[in-house]
């Protein structure tokens, strides 16, 4: 049983029998962002669940993805609910849509993850730089021997389309 991980006043528990998350976070610690890919229909999914939501097959294998994507939505937390986040406010939480499998198998689908938008030194990115449509790439925040959080930082690439952020 791995030791619980303390992070920002929270206890993160990923026990040996966590058949959804244990390997996901262990791969993140190896700085690999992985999705489950169905061995039946070949489609990837997130979160890492036990059956394919597209074909119901049980078989899957980990598939590394590029970690590149676009901010699909975001929020700026100005009043922390968790005490350990108070010194991080205002901090951005982003919904990132990965480049892989966008709009498949239906136009409404995509591989989307929740993370913080952080600077290269893992501080919250400035609000003025957070916008829907902005390009981002994964960066790993190591927390323990067996666990890292996949976070995202701004990618040095032009936005492919419209960029939008909440006005002042």
């Amino acid at each position, binding site marked *: 049983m791995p030791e*619980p991980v303390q*992070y*920002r*006043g*929270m*206890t*993160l*528990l*990923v*026990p040996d029998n*966590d058949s*959804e*998350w244990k390997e996901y*976070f262990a791969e993140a610690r190896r700085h690999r962002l992985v999705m489950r890919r169905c061995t039946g229909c070949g489609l990837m999914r*997130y*979160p890492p*669940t036990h059956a394919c*939501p597209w074909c119901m097959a049980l078989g899957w294998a980990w598939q590394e993805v590029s970690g590149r994507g676009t901010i*699909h*939505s*975001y*929020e*700026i*937390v*100005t*009043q*922390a*609910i*968790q*005490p350990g*986040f108070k010194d*991080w406010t*205002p*901090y951005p*939480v982003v*919904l990132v849509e990965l480049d892989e499998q966008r709009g498949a198998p239906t*136009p*409404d*689908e*995509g591989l*989307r*993850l*929740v*993370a*913080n938008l952080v600077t290269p030194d893992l501080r919250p990115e400035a609000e003025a730089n957070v916008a*829907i449509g902005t390009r981002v790439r994964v960066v790993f925040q190591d927390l323990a021997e067996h666990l890292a*959080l996949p*976070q995202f930082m701004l990618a040095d690439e032009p936005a492919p389309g419209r960029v*939008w952020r*909440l006005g002042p």
Partner: protein
Amino acid sequence: MLVQARGSRDRYCIAGVGETEYSRDSGRTTRAMAVEAVRNAMVDAGLGAADVDGMLSYQNNDSTFAPFVASDLGIRLDFYMDVVGGGSSTEALIGLAMGAIEVGMCRTVAIFRSMNGYTEVRIGGTGARAAAPVRGPDLAQRPFGMTSAGQNFAMTFMRHMHDYGTTSEQVAHVKVAHSKHASQNPKALLTERVTVEDVLGSRWIVKPLHLLDCCVETDNATCVIVTSAERAGDLRSRPVHVMGVAGRVSKPRVDFHWAHGPVSRVAGYYAKDLVFPMAGIGPEDVDVTGSYDAFTFTTMLQLEEYGFCKKGEGGAYVSSGVIELGGARPNNTSGGHLCEGYTHGMSMVIENVRQLRGTTDDYCPRAAEGVHTYDYAPGRCRQVKDAEITMNLGWAMPATGSALILRR
């Protein structure tokens, strides 16, 4: 709207409603409050302990259970169930009560929710909930500081602003309308009318939500009683008929609401196609709406998704005056969760029942007899004249919702 009504329409009624005081200092247990609310609803219906044989409740490991409440009141149960859930449960359990009665499991069901939502388990997620260990599905959000309902839903709200140009100023009108209504409600926690500028000037909580875009954590218990139309006809209060109900209708891949797009779409997109055909009416036939206003945005999103305006035009709709008392289709005439108090949805059903009876408990001296002035100045009347049909839009989260259409 030409549709075929299904079999359950008008065959079940809400026969009684009741609640406790809305406060931020109940000083008592959820059991004590639930007993008072259920008893108030029984008295409202003219039912004794021997007349209630079913009980349902919903909670999130923060409340008492049906067997305690029934025992306190001397009720022997033929059916009970305490389910996990918050918003969207009221309407869903009304539907389940109808089903239990339909198959003969029981005859009359009291449905309650009791919560010390301010003094014990804070609904906003602060206190003990913020300190709980993070495991399982929570690992997808909480390590990133995404915990509370506001933090959880803000992705949907922000994406709606991006997709449709919805503005903070537009949705602030929801709070303005509900505060206007609460100023006519002696029970409301927040009775002061506010302006759009007040909302926009209040501090940010999680952008795009200001403090006044958020509902008010409250201690309270609430209850509605469901029975057949035949039995309801013999009871003390004017029965209100269930025309249609939809319970916890969900978007695909509902475990995380942001998993399936469009992210700015909410569950009403699916629920409307169940509830309106069941009731045999369309949105244009509804006189009063009660929407789950955990946030200003949730009311806007639901009114739009159920077709009270076109998709994407919710911002313009809620800022047009139509949802205010005196407007064409008032919403949350009690002040709702934003102003009256936060009840996980039950209070908006209670309010609509009273609207349909014509006995809304406003400041009119003879309100209980159904005599109203229809003067919507502060501290006066909040009864909608000749309300025939109401609709409740229940919300658990962007991906799950319930709906209930009632008529007098």
